[in-house]
Structures are given as C-alpha cells and as structure tokens.
C-alpha cells in the first residue's frame, strides 16, 4: 500500500512537472551470466506487470568481467549501477567501507528470518544486512553410482578423505579414460584456491592465526597439499592444472570422472540434458577427516544496492521481488521446482514439492555444515569459508593459486610450493600492515 501510494505521488508530481503520465524510474542491474540470473531476465514480465513505473536495464557479464566493472565503479563512485550482483566475498568488505545501502528496512513480506542462517551471517556486517541472497551454494561430492558399484564400493553420505582416496583408486581406469577424481587445478582465488581453502579446513589448517600470521608452514597445510597432489597425480585427469569448474563439468558429463567435488549448483547440470551420465550420479557431503569441519564451501550470489545509487527505493523494490518467496514460486510454476534458485530460504527446503528434487537435501545439509563466521578447527581472525574476507585476499590467493597449480603441473614439490606460498603471503600481509 505504502509503495503504491508513493508511486502515485511520484506520478502526480511528475505529471505536474513534465506532463508525462507515469514517473518512470530506470534502474541498471549488473549481473552475472549464470543460468538462474538469465532465467530471471526471462521472467521480467511479472515484475513489469507489478511495477509498471520501474524499468530495469540489464548488464549481464561473465563473472570476472562483472567483478572488474562493478568494483571499479563502486570504488571510484562511478554510480553506473543501481543493483549489483556480488558474492559473499565482496559483501563484508564493501559493507564495512560503507559502499552498500543497508537492506534492514525491506518490507515485512520479505521475511528476512526465512533466509538460511549460514547465508545470512555471511551477508551481514555489524547487524546490517547489506545484500539479499539470490542463490546460495556449497560444495559436495558427486560420484558415479555405476562405477562405485562395479568397484564393489558404496559411498557413505558423509565420507572421509580416506574413503575418497579408496574410491578414486578403485574407479580409475586410465586406458578407458576414466579418472577416479576430478578436482579444480586452475589458478585463481575463486578457482583452485576456493577448493583447496575449503579442503584445508577439513584438515585442520587455516590461512592465518589469530595475529594474522600466515600458516602455510603448518603441518596441516602440508597434509592438505600432499593429499591433494597425491590424489590428483595418481587418479586425476592429465592436464588438471588447467581445469576449473567448466572443464571438470565437461569431463564429468562425458563420463570421464568417477568423482567430482565441486559446487552444489553442478548437481542440476550433471543430472541434466547435456550429461551422458545423468541417471548414474550420486551425491554425498564434502569429505572430512573427523576434525569437526568438512571440506565444503559457502557462496551466495546476492543483490546489493550501492550507497551512491540515486534510485534506492526502486532498487529495493526490485530486490524484494527478485529474492522473495513469491519469486521462487513463480519460477516453480513456469520452469518446475528443480530450476528454482536454491540455497537461500528455509521455507523452500520445507516445501514437500521441493523435497522431491534429488539433490535438495544434500545441498541443504552442505550449506548448513559450513559456517563462514567459524570456518576452521582452530580460531581465526577472519570471516569466510573458502576465502578470507579481507581486501587483500583476491590478489594474494591468486598468487598462492598459481604456486599450487604449478605444483600440480609437476613444476615444484609440495614443500617448495608451501614455502613459496608462505613467503608470498607473509610479504603481502606485511605490506598491508597486518603484521610487522
């Protein structure tokens, strides 16, 4: 009611001023080109019908380009966008800088308490919600049920790393081009380092101790990297140091991977129409080592409003529409429950219809088992499961990613890689003033 009154008022004012019939507000939404976001653009008729006074202009870009553009814009006060699609890495940093508008005053029907606590925690800074999650994901094990059966093994719902190694060894058949396990090797803070950082959590490792001293010289990191390199060298595909999400997805879909540990969002791809193994895929939680933390991450693509936007009301209206429960129902009615953006709302997982989706429960369990505010076995001064929410992380983790990728390519040993990583991170942390 309040909104429509305001719209009416706006319309009258503009009628008086410009003689136009409707006060049209145009908002520019920057977004990533993933399937869920593309689907939303196809459902804009619903938004336009409900909010004829708001026109939405889309800027759809590939993840890296999107990040480059929106970061430049927000850090220089460019003011080009009214709604930004950003991840859980950016939200805490940008929120702290005061670059984002608080979303605490979203209308009651938004039902903020319905958002999964783990996701909400990662998007909140000092009690302010700075972004509304559009979809959330964790990581899990996807495995070939037929190959496991042929090997006479069964995958536990919550496997250990030892289980993974055993299964990988049993499923590998290099002559038939079947590799026991496919993991990320491509260098980048969002590529191999997302996987390895999450994995290291389950080995009891951490990036920094409480005084921000880098910990790559710890036995826990050594155990992590040794295990990873051993697994990949023995049972992984050749050329793995250049494989990211998409490369591994292709391999898995072609039936060349026995297991793949990656984003939960992949579940709908490996069981989808482009997969040759769609009916032979099982899911399990990311592995652990019995230390109380699993090797899974937590990520949410979320919508936020730059504090510099002149059209915050319209932007909020849009965000409410796009991340509301009604939107989930809208997608379900048009495209089926399996295509609903997952991982943001408790109510979705309580919906009996959604519970029929094969990967729903495993996705929820994975998300719930990750805690961005307490990601590691030992205490840490940072927030973030597969990242460290400080501005310096993207740069320094990419450097470490290159070092580890080179180790995977056989250019250096695990020990050399860890020593190089320790030195590189220590230098950056000194330069950034965290440590002396």
């Amino acid at each position, binding site marked *: 009611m309040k909104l429509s009154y305001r719209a009416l008022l706006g319309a009258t004012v503009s009628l008086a001023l410009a003689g136009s019939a409707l006060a049209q507000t145009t908002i520019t939404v920057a977004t990533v080109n993933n399937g869920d976001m593309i689907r939303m653009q196809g459902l804009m008729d619903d938004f336009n019908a409900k909010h004829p006074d708001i026109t939405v202009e889309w800027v759809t870009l590939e993840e890296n380009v999107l990040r480059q553009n929106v970061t430049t814009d927000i850090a220089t006060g460019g003011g080009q966008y009214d709604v930004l699609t950003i991840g859980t890495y950016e939200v805490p*940093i940008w929120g702290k800088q005061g670059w984002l508008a608080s979303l605490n005053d979203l209308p009651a029907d938004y039902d903020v308490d319905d958002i999964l606590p783990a996701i909400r925690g990662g998007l909140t800074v000092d009690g302010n919600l700075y972004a509304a999650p559009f979809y959330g994901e964790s990581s899990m094990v996807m495995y070939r049920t037929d190959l496991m059966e042929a090997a006479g093994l069964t995958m536990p719902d919550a496997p250990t790393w030892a289980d993974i190694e055993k299964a990988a060894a049993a499923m590998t058949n290099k002559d038939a081009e079947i590799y026991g396990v496919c993991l990320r090797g491509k*260098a980048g803070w969002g590529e191999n380092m997302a996987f390895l950082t999450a994995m290291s959590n389950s080995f009891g490792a951490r990036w920094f101790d409480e005084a921000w001293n880098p910990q790559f010289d710890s036995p826990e990191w050594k155990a992590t990297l040794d295990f990873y390199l051993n697994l990949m060298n023995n049972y992984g595909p050749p050329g793995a140091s*250049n494989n990211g999400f998409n490369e591994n997805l292709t391999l898995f879909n072609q039936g060349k991977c026995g297991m793949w540990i990656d984003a939960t969002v992949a579940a709908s791809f490996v069981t989808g129409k482009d997969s040759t193994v769609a009916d032979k895929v099982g899911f399990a939680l990311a592995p652990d080592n019995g230390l109380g933390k699993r090797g899974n991450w937590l990520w949410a693509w979320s919508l936020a409003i730059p504090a510099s936007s002149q059209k915050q009301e319209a932007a909020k209206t849009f965000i409410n529409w796009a991340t509301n429960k009604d939107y989930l129902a809208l997608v379900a009615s048009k495209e089926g429950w399996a295509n609903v953006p997952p991982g943001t709302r408790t109510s979705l997982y309580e919906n009996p219809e959604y519970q029929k989706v094969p990967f729903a429960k495993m996705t929820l369990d994975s998300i719930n088992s990750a805690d961005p505010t307490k990601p590691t076995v030992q205490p840490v001064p940072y927030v973030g499961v597969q990242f460290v929410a400080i501005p310096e992380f*993207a*740069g320094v983790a990419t450097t470490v990613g*290159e070092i580890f990728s080179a180790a*995977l390519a056989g250019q250096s040993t695990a020990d050399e890689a860890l020593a190089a990583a320790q030195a590189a991170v220590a230098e950056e942390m000194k330069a950034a003033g965290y440590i002396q």
Partner: protein
Amino acid sequence: MSTHSTRLAARFMVAPSVLVLFIWMIVPLAMTAYFSFRLYRLLSPDRTGWVGFNNYVWFFNSPDFWLALTNTLLLVGGVLVITVVLGILIALLIDQPVKGQGVLRILVIAPFFVMPPVAASIWENLFMHPQNGLFAALARGLGGQPILFLEQHPLPSVIGIVAWEWLPFATLIFVTALQSLSSEQLEAAEMDGAGALSRFRYIILPHMTRAVTVVILIQTIFLLGIFGEIFTTTQGGPGSASTTLPYMIFKQAIVAKDIGRAAAGGIIAVILANIVAYFLMRGIGRHLDA
C-alpha cells in the same frame, strides 16, 4: 623543393593529430606516474599516502619479474617471426592468379575478425584441451598420447594462438604491398632467366622491406600489451611459466585492485617498450624512408 607555404600548410595538417595524441598520451601518463608513487588500493580507500618507489621495488623484487620480462620479449619475438615469415609466404601464394581469389582472401583474413577473448577460449577448449580437444583426438587417432599444450608448453601455445590472430594483419599488408610491385619488372627478370628464388631475393623482398618494417613496428606495440589471451588460457601459468609483464599488471589492477602497483608496472612497461622501439628503429627504421 617544397615551398615555404607548402611547408607551413604541412605543419597545419600534422598539428591536429599531434595535438590530440599529445593530450591522449600526457594526461593518462601523468596520472599513472602520480599513482605509481601512491598507495592506492581500490578496496582500501582509507589507506592512502606517498610510498616513494615502493611500488616499483615490488615489481623488481617479485620473483616473477625477470621471467615475465623474458616471456614478454619471447611472446613478441615469437609472434613476429611466425607472422612475418608465414605472412610473406601466404601473401606470395594468394597474390598468384588463382581460382576464387576473393573468397580465398576473406578466408585468410577471417581470424582477425574473431574477438581475441573468443579466439583464446575456442583454442583452449575446442582444440588444445587434453581430453575434448581436436588435437587430442588427432593424437589418439594416430596412436599417440595427447599433448598437454597449456600445461607443458604454455608459452609456445599462447604464442601460437596470438600468431594465428595476427597472421591476417601481416598477410593483408604484405598482399597490398605486393600488388604495388610492377609486374613488368618481374617479367623482365623472368625473361632474363632469373629463378623464382633470386626474383624473390632481389626484387620482391627489397620491395617489401617497408611493409615488413611497418608490420614489425605496429605489431610489436600491440603485442607488448597483450594479457587477455593469457588470462583466458593459462592464467599466466602453470606457476608463472607464461606470465608476461602486462599480465602481471593485469593481476595487480584487476585481481588485487592495487592501482599504485599497476601504475608502476605501466610505467615500467612504457620504459621497456621505448627500449624495444629504440632498438627496432636503429635496426630497421631506415627502411621507412625508402
């Protein structure tokens, strides 16, 4: 020969281009030079200040720096050699009277039309990929093992991709140069009994020197700044095996958001480019007057 008024007119005709290029050069250069002495991280706006030569020192102390310099020169040199040699050969070939010359030329220059990021993505995934790539399928078809292009030969692979992109540019300029070669001269030489090789050596090649010079100079300047293809295919790796200076700058500017360091890298790149250009001009610059 030229009168005073002609020379004056010529000055006026050159002036606009010099003026706009000067502004275009000096303003960003001055800003970059300024930033290169500042602490300027996009994501930490509260920490700023003068840092002296720290940003430069970071580059020189970086374990990748000298490797990146070598790689930059190897990339430029490799692509130049491939494009110039193949470009001349292809230009000679398609300058012959052949059937379907028009279509032929379009096919040869087609790679230039593909946007660089797309070209790199296609080469990486549809050709060089060790499992799905066409090359891997060929290798297996011939009974061999697929070559791990991007993992074991990262720099040559990147050079190959970039050379493929730039080959049409060189070919196009060479073909145009060949077309202005008078055929009478060639025919006369042919009648004198000069073989194909000596005709190439004594008539065609001297005629092409200016075209070759132009191709080398223009491509060098473009190639010295390449980073997109590296980001798409190898991320500068494995390790830093295919990292170049522009890619180091790219990582500082785009990934780490450290504008101060990126600016210092930019200044270093400009100095490097000037050194390269100086030697090029000393080596081949005289051909420009011909």
